[in-house]
């Protein structure tokens, strides 16, 4: 199988809905200047496969939702003042401050057989998983991925920025753990 496309909705630096088609290529490069959103795209792929947010440079799921130009004077970014927080919440329809986000991956299993995996961050800040528009549990979601050879626990097919060198010099114990997970 292969990844044929992605749809990002208010995910990290992607405001609104962004659709990306990978076409029929098997070697796809993502390019662009520093800070444009390349690693955020990789975070979107990792997120939709069920990776925990701590691997995506954020402490909680809400950090993965697009945040636009927060007017510093109106709501100081670090303000923990309840009144400000409520005011931000009230701006419900403000495109700069969406309250939910999702990523959908279109995966082709074989000719004319494609599956849509979608993971959504709800207003409460939890995850919701759908396969072809149908709500499923997290474990069912990961089982379907596993059948496709996508082992989230091993993560041996994702190399995040800056991590490649330490793969060669990881401790012998870590290497054994990886070997156990894939066997």
């Amino acid at each position: 199988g292969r990844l044929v496309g992605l749809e990002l909705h208010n995910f990290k630096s992607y405001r609104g809905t962004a659709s990306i088609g990978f076409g029929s290529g098997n070697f796809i490069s993502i390019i662009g200047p520093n800070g444009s959103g390349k690693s955020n795209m990789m975070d979107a792929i990792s997120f939709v496969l069920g990776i925990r947010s701590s691997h995506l440079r954020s402490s909680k799921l809400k950090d993965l939702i697009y945040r636009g130009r927060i007017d510093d004077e109106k709501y100081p970014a670090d303000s923990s003042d309840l009144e400000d927080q409520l005011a931000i919440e009230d701006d419900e329809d403000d495109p700069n401050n969406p309250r939910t986000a999702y990523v959908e991956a279109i995966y082709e299993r074989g000719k004319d057989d494609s599956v849509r995996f979608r993971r959504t961050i709800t207003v409460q800040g939890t995850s919701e998983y759908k396969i072809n528009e149908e709500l499923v549990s997290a474990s069912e979601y990961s089982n379907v991925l596993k059948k496709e050879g996508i082992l989230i626990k091993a993560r041996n097919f994702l190399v995040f920025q800056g991590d490649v060198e330490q793969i060669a010099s990881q401790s012998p114990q870590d290497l054994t753990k990886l070997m156990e997970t894939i066997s």
Partner: protein
Amino acid sequence: RYNLFMEAFDFISTKIDSTYKDLTKAEASPLGGSAYLTLEDEEEPYNSGIKYHAMPPLKRFRDMELLSGGEKTVAALALLFAIHSFQPSPFFVLDEVDAALDNANIQRVANYIVKHSGPNFQFIVISLKNGLFEKSDALVGIYREQVKNSSKTLSIDLREYPR
């Protein structure tokens, strides 16, 4: 448990050397380097460590810590690709893995990807170096749209253009 583990270990350790050679063959050293895995405890391998050794062509050191930044990157990619051959996932996502590589190593990695990518092994590679991304089938260009303060994307199929 022992059998499953050893099945994986044996498969990968026979594959690691040829993968490393694929990534290190050059005019000066047509044979490439050599790489292998050793078990710290043969009896209960899953309870002890696995040591990875890689020796770049024409070098003598087997200690991973003495390798340079670029040499470590190549050794790491060889290990990843060897593991993949045992447990194939349908795609790989690599984020600027070429940061420490010189132009010769970039070419070898690019050629490896071109040779091994296919319908069941898709590579999605983030790179700043044209030596790598110019060999891909398609490009996804990302830019920042300042007014809306948002990332935007653009896709181009390179196969439609003369190389």
